[in-house]
């Protein structure tokens, strides 16, 4: 009879979830074998998107302070995690973002002025154009995870070679819906990619207080699916891991959970959160040294693909487009109650038919 071993099965687990890094903080390739197959144009486009998004963040914070934007969750620091992962997607793939994941939506096709309308709280901001396969940012942390399993099930059922890509944060990995969604996708071998952007804090609560697990990536084991921990400040590593996950998913090999180790320089949202209450300057400095733009810039400069001139051009274009988008958002018709009633159902039930008449009357005065 074999004896049961009481060795702690978690011993040595950290080796299985070692952080994948391709580009170090100095912009040097540290893992030659895993450098993704990206053309020079792709590399430049990735950098353009990251610079654009950094400007968008700075301008969004300013516009929010001026009262010209509403709800806004800062993104600075997470550009590699957000845009590197999205860059691995195809247009027909389906995006289920969380509230901080507006940049991915924009690069998936959501016009910028609509992203601003989302921030302000206007339904038109959520009306994805017909060719944009995405839902608007999810506010209920975890709900997007079970829905992603459903989208992925749909792709598989309909025989489409596409994936559902969804995001949550480190706090979100504590939700029941997080486990359920990953587990369902695993049970159905559905083509879904679950990205957990571990930015170290859920508002003020550090990741150590979310779970005793060493990594979030290892939570994949509970669903029996592959999990990877990636340097979320390294755009090449993020792209590479997500691209591999996409390839496996469309080949019918099921979902993947990916933890990107990243950081948000700003507050949780612009609604009164003060990060100095729970973060130290030292911590901010440490992470800013790992900045995704700095290291990718160095890498591209080393390949003669990037210049200060080019970067300034993108900064100016971004500022100009943001200005235009805000103007366009300003011009959007104000919402009426009758608009809100009309988007509730395909056919209005009796109570809403009555209320529609009531508000039509009010609005005509």
């Amino acid at each position, binding site marked *: 009879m074999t004896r049961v071993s009481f060795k702690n099965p978690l011993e040595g687990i950290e080796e299985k979830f070692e952080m994948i890094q391709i580009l170090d903080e100095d912009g040097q390739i540290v893992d030659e074998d895993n450098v993704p197959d990206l053309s020079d144009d792709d590399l430049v486009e990735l950098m353009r998107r990251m610079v654009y998004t950094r400007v968008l963040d700075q301008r969004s914070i300013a516009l929010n302070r001026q009262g010209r934007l509403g709800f806004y969750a800062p993104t600075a620091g997470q550009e590699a995690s957000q845009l590197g992962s999205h860059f691995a997607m195809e247009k027909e793939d389906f995006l289920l973002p969380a509230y901080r994941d507006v940049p991915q939506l924009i690069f998936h096709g959501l016009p910028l002025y609509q992203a601003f309308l989302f921030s302000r709280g206007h339904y038109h901001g959520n009306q994805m154009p017909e060719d944009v396969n995405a839902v608007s940012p999810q506010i209920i942390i975890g709900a997007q995870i*079970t829905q992603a399993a459903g989208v992925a099930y749909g792709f598989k059922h309909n025989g489409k070679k596409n994936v559902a890509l969804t995001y949550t944060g480190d706090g979100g990995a504590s939700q029941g819906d997080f486990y*359920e969604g990953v587990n369902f996708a695993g049970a159905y071998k559905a083509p879904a990619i679950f990205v957990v952007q571990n930015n170290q804090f859920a508002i003020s609560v550090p990741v150590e207080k979310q779970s005793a697990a060493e990594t979030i990536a290892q939570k994949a084991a509970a669903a029996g699916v592959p999990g990877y921990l990636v340097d979320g400040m390294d755009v090449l590593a993020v792209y590479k891991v997500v691209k591999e996950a996409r390839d496996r998913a469309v080949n019918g090999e099921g979902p993947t959970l990916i933890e990107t180790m990243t950081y948000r320089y700003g507050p949780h949202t612009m609604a009164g959160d003060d990060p100095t209450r729970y973060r130290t300057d030292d911590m901010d400095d440490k992470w800013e040294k790992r900045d995704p733009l700095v290291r990718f810039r160095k890498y591209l400069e080393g390949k003669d693909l990037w210049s200060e001139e080019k970067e300034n051009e993108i900064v100016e274009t971004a500022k100009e487009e943001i200005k235009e988008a805000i103007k366009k958002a300003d011009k959007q018709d104000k919402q009426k109650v009758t608009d809100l009633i009309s988007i509730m159902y*395909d056919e209005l039930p009796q109570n809403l038919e009555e209320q529609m008449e009531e508000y039509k009357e009010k609005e005509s005065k």
Partner: protein
Amino acid sequence: MAQMTMIQAITNALHTELKNDENVLVFGEDVGQNGGVFRATEGLQEEFGEERVFDTPLAESGIIGLAVGMSTQNLRPVPEIQFFGFVYEAMDAVSGQAARMRYRSGGRWHAPMTIRSPFGGGVHTPELHADSLEGLMAQQPGLKVVIPSNPYDAKGLLIQSIRDNDPVIFLEHMKLYRSFREEVPEEEYSIDLGKANVKREGSDITFVAYGAMVHAALKAADELKEEGIEAEVIDLRTVAPVDIDTIIESVEKTNRAVVIQEAQKQAGIAASIVSEIQERAILHLEAPVLRVAAPDTVYPFSEAEEVWLPNHKDIVEKAKQSINF
């Protein structure tokens, strides 16, 4: 035509829609090979395959979240929640997500799903199986809530629910599953949602009921007839939105009304019907509109169901109170 129980009529409706529309998917805990804990999905997986009728992991939130996601891929999900007491697990997916899908996307997406779920007392189920939670659902904009009381309605309403392009909660009373048989056409037919049915005409008092309480109301009406009181019995069939026109028309004729539900008095939907009647027909009323409902306690331990659940005697008593007001 065939004699069917309500559960057979439900299976027949699911079969009809699986056959009619290849985008209809039926899934939940044990609905596949097992055919459902009440046999509602019996034989369906065998006929339509595991891609169309399938089992899920045991997680209600995951089941409804899955359905919401599927809705974006041109599918028409018909998920089952094994007992409606378990809806708390899925409240966000139902009320926070499915119900809001069309509105939050400005019409870009919608959730054409029908959530089937058994509920209702009188069969000595264990805890949190029989609770009447339709009131929670009826308060959520974006949902429709359907509760059939007989096999004929169950088939027509379920077909219509599945075809509806917005989320429908279809609640099946466990006591009515096999309590009687009725003629149900084999061919397809549908019954409009939001339309009540006058089950019995009367001139002295209006009974508004749904689910198992429809049968209690009819029994009460039989008893009252012997005393010369003619009750009109309305079966709501859809509890959200309520067919208020049919109710008001009846109340304007009888000038008295009792609203009857199995749920606790503080729950269910009776209070909103009373409000509607007083807003629209107060000058026609000879007496206050009364309610028959369960006591405001947690659903009873099974041995206490008989003393707790509302029945036809409670209805007779309230009717007399109204007549003698």
